[in-house]
């Protein structure tokens, strides 16, 4: 086949990703986006102009060799595509699904200026999924360095750091407090966005290749402390995330039926509550649900609620799910794609609405929520227009479930007996932005525990930068 001209490449339209029909998918927890077939992947890859100075790579927090992997893919050399990908990204099947590509690689793609950017995320997922089923390019471990590294937390930051250090030949042990590895990838992100089988397969593959040990059921701060780890390991990376839920400070917050998004998602995802009673952990959902907040976690909670309502009601009069957000649509922090999917599925968005009290019945259960209408005033410290209540606009919503998705902060448990580890007033670890080095010798940190709740890929980037610095330190 003759090489396509740039004009011909630009004439190809962005390949759609097949998705489950919204009417069908709201009754199941199966993956929404179904992935490219080989032919569509090649068509999409053919759109890439192979820029001399690729902007996409600059937009990627881990610097994936995007033009190279796309070129290999379209030339049919999948093994090479995988190899190029894995040079920078060890977990492509995960990143391809959950990265906010529209603000990163795809946001920088030159094609996006005139039409639509290359669907880099979808191609990344395609390459990642291909490798999970074909295993063409196992990660290779360098000869043993004789150095021992402890990684606290098996979420995106910890996993990435562990894999990079494992590749350099270090003896890596990951400590995970829950009973399975993956952190937020398994307890937070729902099955329909990121199937657990993909997470487990990606982790198992990398761990097998590199001989990395994962110790589940180890709560650092309780089972062992950072100080204990310092006695036994040459270096430590803390990637324990931001696991502590923020509760709204309004009356009624402890009523039955009010829960954190963390609790709700953990019941649904980690504990497989949507399969109760086959699985033992129950999850309760009312007919009228409000999710407070409008980030990605809020979208996940709302969409899980909707599915649970359908499953539990058997389809008849399942109820409704609201997103209650005090700012307007323009300020919504969730990804466009998530908002779009939520709307498609029938989530009701109540913008410029702020809860002031959760109302209970005589049995201590939620019966509603008193809200006030808001309007946007002057910009606040975040640069967004500050929402201010409209006097006399209070109204009551009738509800039986309230899910609070107002962000999370680092869990202080990990810092027990580690007083020297300096933290900000927000509870985040103070670490060097480029190296991840903390105020304690031999200890690095990265991901949400340093930045506060952010994205999977930024945590991976932090894990990667820390691994590079730790390797320098361990090799010195």
């Amino acid at each position, binding site marked *: 086949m003759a090489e396509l001209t740039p004009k011909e490449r630009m004439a190809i339209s962005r390949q759609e990703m097949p998705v489950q029909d919204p009417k069908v998918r709201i009754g199941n927890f199966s993956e929404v986006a179904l992935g490219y077939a080989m032919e569509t992947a090649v068509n999409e890859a053919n759109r890439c102009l192979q820029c001399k100075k690729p902007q996409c790579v600059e937009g990627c927090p881990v610097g994936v060799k995007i033009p190279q992997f796309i070129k290999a893919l379209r030339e049919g050399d999948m093994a090479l595509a995988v190899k190029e990908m894995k040079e920078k990204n060890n977990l492509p099947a995960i990143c391809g699904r959950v990265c906010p590509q529209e603000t990163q690689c795809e946001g920088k793609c030159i094609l996006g200026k005139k039409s639509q950017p290359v669907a880099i995320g979808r191609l990344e997922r395609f390459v990642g999924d291909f490798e999970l089923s074909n295993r063409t390019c196992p990660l290779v471990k360098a000869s043993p360095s004789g150095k021992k590294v402890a990684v606290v937390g098996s979420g995106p930051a910890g996993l990435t750091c562990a894999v990079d250090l494992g590749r350099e030949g270090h003896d890596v042990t990951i400590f995970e407090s829950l009973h399975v590895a993956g952190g937020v990838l398994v*307890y937070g992100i729902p099955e329909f966005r990121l199937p657990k089988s993909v997470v487990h397969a990606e982790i198992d593959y990398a761990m097998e290749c590199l001989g990395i040990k994962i110790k589940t059921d*180890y709560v650092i701060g309780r089972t*062992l402390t950072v100080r204990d780890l310092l006695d036994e390991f040459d270096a430590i990376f803390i990637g324990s995330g931001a696991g*502590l*839920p923020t509760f709204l400070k309004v009356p009624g917050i402890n009523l039955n039926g009010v829960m954190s998004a963390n609790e709700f998602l953990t*019941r649904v995802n980690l504990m497989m509550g949507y399969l109760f009673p086959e699985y033992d952990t129950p999850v309760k959902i009312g007919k009228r649900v409000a999710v407070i907040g409008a980030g990605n976690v809020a979208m996940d909670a709302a969409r899980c609620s909707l599915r649970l309502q359908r499953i539990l009601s058997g389809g008849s009069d399942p109820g409704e799910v609201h997103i209650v957000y005090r700012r307007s649509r323009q300020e919504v922090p969730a990804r466009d794609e998530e908002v779009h999917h939520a709307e498609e599925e029938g989530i009701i968005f109540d913008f410029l609405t702020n809860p002031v009290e959760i109302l209970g019945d005589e049995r201590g259960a939620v019966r509603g929520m008193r809200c006030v209408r808001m309007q946007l005033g002057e910009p606040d410290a975040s640069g967004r227009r500050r929402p201010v209540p409209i006097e006399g606009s209070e109204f009551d919503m009738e509800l039986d479930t309230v899910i609070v998705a107002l962000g999370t902060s680092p869990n*202080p448990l990990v810092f027990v007996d580690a007083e020297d580890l300096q933290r900000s007033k927000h509870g985040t670890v103070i670490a060097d932005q480029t190296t991840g080095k903390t105020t304690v010798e031999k200890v690095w940190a990265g991901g949400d525990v340093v930045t506060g709740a952010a994205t999977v890929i930024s945590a991976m980037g932090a894990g990667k930068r820390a691994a590079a610095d730790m390797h320098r330190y361990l090799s010195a």
Partner: protein
Amino acid sequence: MEDRPKGYKILKKQVLSDVTKLMVIEAPQVAKKAQAGQFIIIKIDAKGERIPLTIADFDREAGTITIIFQEVGKSTMHLGTLNEGDSVETFVGPLGHPTEIKNYGTVICVGGGVGIAPIYPIARALKEAGNEVISIIGARNKSLLFWEDKMRAVSDELIVCTDDGSYGRKCLVTEPLKEIVTGGKKVAKVWAIGPAIMMKFVALATEPLRVPTIVSLNTIMIDGTGMCGGCRVPLKEGAQFVCVDGPEFDGHAVDWDGMLGRLQFYRDEEKIALERFKHECNLDKAIGRQ
């Protein structure tokens, strides 16, 4: 930090009553750090739920933790069917803050029902710290009582009572408690562990007398590390997490009605799970008979 296959072995099982069982579980990393007052989270198998159980005893050298549980729901009933040599999938801890042990003077340790188990290591530690320990243990009836001998061995005085009078004094644990604290003896502190309703009445009994009273709460929990907030307990001012702020709380600060209400939230589901489990057990038995 030796490598071990996933799973924690049940080294010993003892039937304390029809519905109360003791298990000694091999978990060296938990035993190494365990202290009186702390708890563990156990998950039986891949489909199991994570449930908190207070540590009844620990042996650092043997690397074991003793748990005692009453079969009240699906998970505890399932656990009760396991035998020595079987393993559970997850056993994590020690979680929560340990009891603050020091020489207070005269203290009272109240254990109700299965709460006798976690009060034991606390009474023992308080005794070792030089306190005069008066213990009160009680249960609905004689068959639900256990560890009388062990409690006696760590107490200066032990009072045993049952609701129905089938053993010891016929009364609730609050009765002897009130007698002691109003009887002129200077009691520095009371610990009470048992059913939530018992702890509520202990706290109500000591509050007007201003005797500091510590209760150990066992709420609905998932991770046990502060992540979900499902275990939050309403206090008279604000709320706290049982898993990381507790499990011990000032009994006089707890909003007991709020706390009791939260315990009921999953009652329907608990019933469904239990019925389903019993049904499966009956099926197994029926198949076994064939």
